[in-house]
């Protein structure tokens, strides 16, 4: 039996020569035909819209930066941002309550989610707007008939306040479920390690669990915010002075219904686009330590790339 020498064994392990593949890409006629069809369809839709006789693009342009429209836009942004922030805070509180060992807390939190996710937001908005019918005076004091410390007339519930209450409290119910899922997704070993070090409870939540839960929480939260930007249009039912309310008022005067709705739609599209970009950067920030390949340099380069471009490089 022949035993190969170490030198010849090495030679078989390392093949110095490079054999290029240079294979041609297989053409895909079906995909090409599909692409052309989709392109033709898109151009046709755009053309039809642009040339439609009853869409007055000059009106769209005239009203795009109109004073009242911009004010309505401001209300929409304010409603979205404040409701979302409040919704996240309520959601965090309710999520922690739902995960608490205290049964009463769990039931109260569960009932809140159940009620506000189980009734239509439109109904909730109408309810908050008409709160004065049930409680003409809103008072704060010792419950069950004790002395009152502070009270206001229900007339302080303006459409804006009613909108905020409805949107924030409704959002809190959805956010509580998103945050709860995020907290539950963090490895229990993380909490144990923190407890074993003697970490205060507050720090365990704020420095160990939540930063990791953020990775799970952020994508659906971004979704919620994008949805919220448009859901605010529901407050038009209670004369909320938001973007939709304003354009409705304008077209009731000038009868340019479609043109005015296009003005509003373009603004909603712009807002959601900005929110999407913001979401992308937030998600990057909380992926710290979870993408092993990230070095400082590649981090910068990746951040510069748009979401769509990035997908291609990391399928």
């Amino acid at each position: 039996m022949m035993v190969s020498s170490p030198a010849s064994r090495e030679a078989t392990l390392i093949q110095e020569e490079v054999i290029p593949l240079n294979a041609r890409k297989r053409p895909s006629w079906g995909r090409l035909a599909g692409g052309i069809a989709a392109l033709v369809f898109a151009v046709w839709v755009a053309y039809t819209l642009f040339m439609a006789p009853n869409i007055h693009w000059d009106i769209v342009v005239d009203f795009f930066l109109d004073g009242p429209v911009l004010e309505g836009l401001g209300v929409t942004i304010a409603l979205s941002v404040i409701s979302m922030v409040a919704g996240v805070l309520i959601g965090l509180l309710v999520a922690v309550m739902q995960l608490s060992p205290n049964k009463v807390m769990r039931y109260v939190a569960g009932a809140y989610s159940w009620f506000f996710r189980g009734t239509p937001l439109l109904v909730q908005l109408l309810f908050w707007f008409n709160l004065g019918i049930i409680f003409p005076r809103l008072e704060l004091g010792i419950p069950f008939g004790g002395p009152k410390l502070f009270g206001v007339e229900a007339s302080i519930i303006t459409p804006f306040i009613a909108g905020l209450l409805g949107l924030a409290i409704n959002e809190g119910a959805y956010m509580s479920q998103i945050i709860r899922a995020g907290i539950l997704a963090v490895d229990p070993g993380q909490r144990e390690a923190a407890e074993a070090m003697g970490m205060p409870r507050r720090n365990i939540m704020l420095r160990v669990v939540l930063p990791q839960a953020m990775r799970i929480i952020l994508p659906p939260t971004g979704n919620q915010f994008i949805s919220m930007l448009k859901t605010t249009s529901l407050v038009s039912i209670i004369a909320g002075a938001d973007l939709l309310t304003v354009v409705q008022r304008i077209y009731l005067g000038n009868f340019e219904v479609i043109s005015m709705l296009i003005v509003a739609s373009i603004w909603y599209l712009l807002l959601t686009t900005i929110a999407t970009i913001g979401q992308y950067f937030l998600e990057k920030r909380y992926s710290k330590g979870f993408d092993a390949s990230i070095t400082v340099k590649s981090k910068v380069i990746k951040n510069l790339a748009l979401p769509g471009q990035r997908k291609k490089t990391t399928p």
Partner: protein
Amino acid sequence: MTGPIVQTQAVRKSFGTNEILKGISLSVEPGEVICIIGPSGSGKTTLLRCLNQLEKIDSGRIHVNGELLGYIEQPDGSLMERSYESLRQQRQRIGMVFQRFNLFPHMTALENVVEGPWRIKKQGKAAATAVATELLAKVGLSERENHYPGQLSGGQQQRVAIARALAMEPSLMLFDEPTSALDPELVGEVLTVMKRLAQTGMTMVVVTHEMEFAKTVADRVIFMADGVIVEQGTPQEVLQNPVHQRTRDFLSRVA
């Protein structure tokens, strides 16, 4: 300190109807290195987790650093559960190293080690960073300070975890199968760090399957099976001349 660092008396613990610990009495002297060996399901990990109250015991007493762990003795002799605040003060002096490292993945190696002295012991960030830098150097990871756990090998992660525990300046270190989740070629670097730690006089309780480590580093080896301590003694006694048949069976299987 005079007296043992750890003293357990008749510790019992069940999960449901399954009794995992059936009366464990054990004491660990300052500077002693104890290796607990035994088949899986013998209760050795549960015992270790009881020593810092990650598991609550059903009956018995555990004293660590001379204090009753997890409870306060009332003047009338009854026991009252400690508040989380009081328990965490006790835990700060008990370091724990986990099988799966459990480093905080969103923090760099340095940030993991700084967290304890900075945020828990309130030493100030500069002082805490100095402590952490020195400890990472001691476990041979100065070059990896700014790496996230996901960028480190298992052996490196476990060494960071040891540094993180040491940063709290514990009087006792607990190791829960610290090398069981590692690739074979990475076990040595972790055991070397642990051996050096033992030489500095640290009191250590190590649950392990590394017989060679137990033989060369341990002052005392404890063999557990079915929730009881079957036998204990010097590594020579337990590993070379076991008295009990169960010990002999176990050793012949792992050898």
